[in-house]
């Protein structure tokens, strides 16, 4: 069992929900990212989603676009993020998921990427512009090296597509809460609940985490009531960008408290 799956299993056993914060690697520097990761782990994050900067992040709203720009300016890219994870792996113990657009992986080479990711201690990948349809070529490498592949399911996905997404996802399934881009306003509806049910039923109970648009501890609590885990991205990036690490710590603690 992967470390991600094990974490969800453990949470399920004690009736908890996963808190999955997102931060951008190298925003504004890798030293800062190291500090952010330490705070996240200390404040009780279950899994961390580490963004890899890309020049054209078309699924992301302005907050994460700006974070990617800062990271690119700092010279951070997929190879340097892999080296970074390898370096900090002895001090950060929670599972790490890389969130990256496909082109940096493609350019690096599918097989080399998954091999090096494993060596670095990466646990999973989320690729927002990778569809089930195009995943045939790289999935075997992910499986070979034991990296979880977390696909996105959306409110627009019909039952048929939800099943497809559930099938190829390992570790957990990422349910995009809104029809939109990261950082937009959260809306939880009957569709949210039904889609999560479909994903779970059709996958033999794979965990489902909900993300996009979760910003306040109140929203995180609402999302946690529907899913096995909650992903918070843009709002966290906004918090650490303001610079006060004590405030950042308090905010993360509040989110952790809310997600149960």
């Amino acid at each position, binding site marked *: 069992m992967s470390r991600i799956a094990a974490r969800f299993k453990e949470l399920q056993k004690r009736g908890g929900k996963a808190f999955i914060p997102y931060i951008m690697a190298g925003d504004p520097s890798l030293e800062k990212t190291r500090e952010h990761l330490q705070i996240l782990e200390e404040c009780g994050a279950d899994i961390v989603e580490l963004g890899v900067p890309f020049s*054209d992040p*078309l699924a992301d709203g302005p907050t994460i676009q700006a974070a990617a720009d800062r990271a690119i300016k700092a010279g951070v890219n997929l190879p340097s993020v892999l080296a970074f994870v390898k370096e900090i792996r002895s001090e950060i113990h929670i599972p790490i998921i890389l969130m990256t657009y496909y*082109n940096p992986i*493609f350019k690096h080479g599918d097989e080399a990427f998954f091999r090096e990711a494993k060596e670095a201690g990466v646990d999973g990948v989320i690729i927002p*512009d990778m569809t089930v349809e195009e995943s045939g070529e790289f999935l075997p490498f992910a499986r070979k090296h034991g990296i979880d592949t977390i696909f996105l*399911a959306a409110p627009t*996905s019909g039952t048929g597509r939800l099943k497809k997404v559930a099938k190829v996802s390992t570790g957990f399934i990422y349910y995009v809460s809104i*029809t939109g*881009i990261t950082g*937009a306003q959260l809306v939880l509806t009957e569709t949210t609940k039904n889609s999560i049910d479909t994903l779970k039923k059709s996958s033999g109970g794979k965990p489902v985490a909900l993300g996009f648009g979760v910003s306040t501890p109140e929203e995180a609590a609402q999302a946690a009531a529907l899913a096995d885990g909650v992903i918070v991205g843009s709002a966290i990036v906004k918090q650490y960008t303001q610079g006060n690490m004590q405030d950042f710590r308090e905010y993360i603690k509040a989110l952790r408290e809310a997600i149960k």
Partner: protein
Amino acid sequence: MKKGHFGEYGGQYVPETLMPALIELEKAYNTAKRDKNFQAGFRSLCEHYIGRPTPLYFAKRLTEHLGGAKIYLKREDLAHTGSHKINNSLGQALLAKQMGKTRLIAETGAGQHGVATATGAALLGLSCVIYMGSVDMKRQALNVFRMRLLGAEVREVKIGSRTLKDAINEALRDWTTNVGNTHYVLGTVFGPHPFPEIVRDFQSIIGREARKQIMKAEGRLPDYLIACVGGGSNSMGLFHDFLKEENIKMTGVEAGGKGIESGRHASRFAGGSIGVFQGTKSYLLQSDVGNVLETYSVSAGLDYASVGPEHAFMRDLGRIEYTYAIDDEALAAFETLSRLEGIIPALESSHAVAHCIKLAPTLPKDSIIVVNLSGRGDKDVQEVARIKGIEL
């Protein structure tokens, strides 16, 4: 070949939120292709609204000046709104209406596709938002005003390189958010399947007309076809009907900007490598870690980091050759055609004319070249004056 792919190129690399919309679009398009009413409606608009067929004009003075092959110009500049873009925009607007969408969005570089889409929206009573980079809004100010006159909202894109690629990112983000009531009128043979196929099909009328017209004028098919390649819609539109004619040589002309060695260009085939960008796999100008590079061209419509996947496939097959013309060559061609033929070409099309000027003198006098004059240059006169240091 795998559905939606051209050899190893093409595909659907988009957020899951958009996949159902792409599947819906593919179904609607396949139905429309077989729907006699839809096709008759499109044909009627082509004839009575766009003004098709556009002429195939023998450029006598340019031919004499160059002293080689006979040069014919396919006059897409005479199509309504001033370029070939209207063929696709109107086709997709009809399709959107049929699908029950009430809102059109589009990206634009030179502004021609934005104007064409705003026109289609006005004609069919749909609301319309056009995304345009701030750099392009400045160099194509006239087209910005035209779009607004037509009732479209033009949204300035201030992120990234502030050109066409960033406008596409924003249009994709809008589509992801408003996919329920909105159709994204992608303007070129690019993006996720089924766009490269749909745009090619609507544009292939250019080549079908040219075939009939050259047969009437010369009693035979041409030896060479030349067109400029940004995303690649006017070139694919001209070339597609001739792909099976093995004796016809086809050349796509990319934007060489300040020259390949300067790094300031948009020649994907000369300076790029295979990548995945904005929904499709094709040639891409990218860094060694897979970030998309900024491009440069005097022509906003060719200033783009990637190229249609079918072009990449045709290039690998050796069926279409690709070359480039630099800014200075395009600007010289812009003036040459204006003075010799009384036709002011778009700066995009000037790249095709520039290659023709190089090629024609090397060919025998009985050979025939067809150049796609994809758009008219009225939109560019201010920018050319600025480059020449002339105050208007």
